[in-house]
């Protein structure tokens, strides 16, 4: 954000600071403790009084839970170990972990790869505090469980635009959002932060 002189009016500050967008995609594991951090900064925040910031600026967040995270576990037979389960890895079957041919005579089935997993029971933490239920589901979106995002680990979800202005620290420039997947599903999270 532009660094503005202290003697500018609040309106001028508002008009001269353009929207800032921070977005990205994160793959999340299925450990149940995956926490993805999003740092962003509101450079001009020190030129506002906290009240002015809350009155004239807004910070919005939108998060989507999508399929195809890290491939999940498969169960298969192994010539010496017997039936066992392990994660299918980020390589093509037959070329990576326990490849068919060099893998002691065992191969990985193509099916059973949990590429359909969607993040489940995902929480939104802002500056170290869980704000999931404080923010709630103002857009009445499906897959809101009543306490977090992603109800079943298979259906994709979208929070819609969430106004998180009141949960931003309006006295410091550094802000942190954490997306915590607690449902042990894994998958992909797409996030967008807008400062307008």
């Amino acid at each position, binding site marked *: 954000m*532009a660094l503005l002189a202290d003697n500018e009016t609040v309106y001028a500050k508002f008009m001269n600071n353009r929207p800032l967008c921070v977005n990205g995609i994160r793959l999340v594991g299925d450990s149940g403790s995956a926490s993805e951090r999003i740092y*962003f*900064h509101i*450079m001009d925040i020190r030129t506002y009084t906290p009240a002015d910031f809350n009155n004239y600026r807004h910070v919005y967040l939108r998060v989507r839970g999508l399929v195809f995270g*890290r491939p999940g576990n498969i169960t298969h037979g*192994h010539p010496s170990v017997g039936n*066992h389960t392990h994660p299918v890895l980020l390589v093509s079957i037959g070329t990576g972990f326990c490849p068919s041919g060099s893998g*002691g005579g065992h191969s990985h089935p193509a099916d059973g790869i949990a590429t359909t997993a969607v993040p489940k029971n995902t929480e939104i933490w802002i500056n170290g505090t869980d704000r999931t239920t404080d923010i709630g589901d103002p857009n009445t979106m499906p897959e809101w469980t009543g306490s977090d995002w992603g109800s079943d680990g298979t259906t994709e979800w979208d929070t819609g635009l969430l106004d998180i202005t009141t949960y931003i620290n309006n006295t410091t420039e550094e802000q942190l959002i954490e997306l915590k997947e607690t449902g042990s599903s894994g998958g992909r999270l797409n996030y967008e932060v807008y400062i307008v």
Partner: protein
Amino acid sequence: MALITTNETYGSKFMNNRPLSISDEVVMDGTGTSEHTFYFHIMETGALWDGSFYVSFRQVLLFLYGYAGGGYPEESHVHPSVGNHTHPCTPSEYAAGTSGTNPSHGHGNAGLDPTVVPKHVEIWIDGTERTLDIGNPNSKTHYDTVDGWGDDGTNEWSTGRLDITDYVDPTVQDHYITIKETGGEGGRVQYCLYIT
């Protein structure tokens, strides 16, 4: 950055140029030679700006964060029937060690522990190392005055706001920053770059 017409005053150029934000999270592989480069462009440099004005009125700011949770590094280990082989080791697989869901695979190379934090991270700008030139202006902890950011591989760190304007060539639009992890730990680095 907005593309500005040549008949605007410097003042209006300053006021009318939007802040540019680039951010992402990168995973260090723990080899000690892991590096990530990101490119950015200052559109109005060159024809529309002279260097002295740019340095006087614009700022290029960088924030870095080092924390744990490195992705899926390659791990060499012994397989009961395959023998030595290498594949990406996921955090959950790492955690399983030798007694989890993958009983006969000796995962557990300490150097690939997903709890480690990037160590001795250097900042290179347009091909030149600037780590010590930039230094630690915010007196943050876990800055090594010889080797850069992250002093022990276990404590998370953040640089705070680093003004790198002086190290960005104001006469060309094409720039790149390389983040190098030389401590051989791994982990994640998040960067936030602002052109204000």
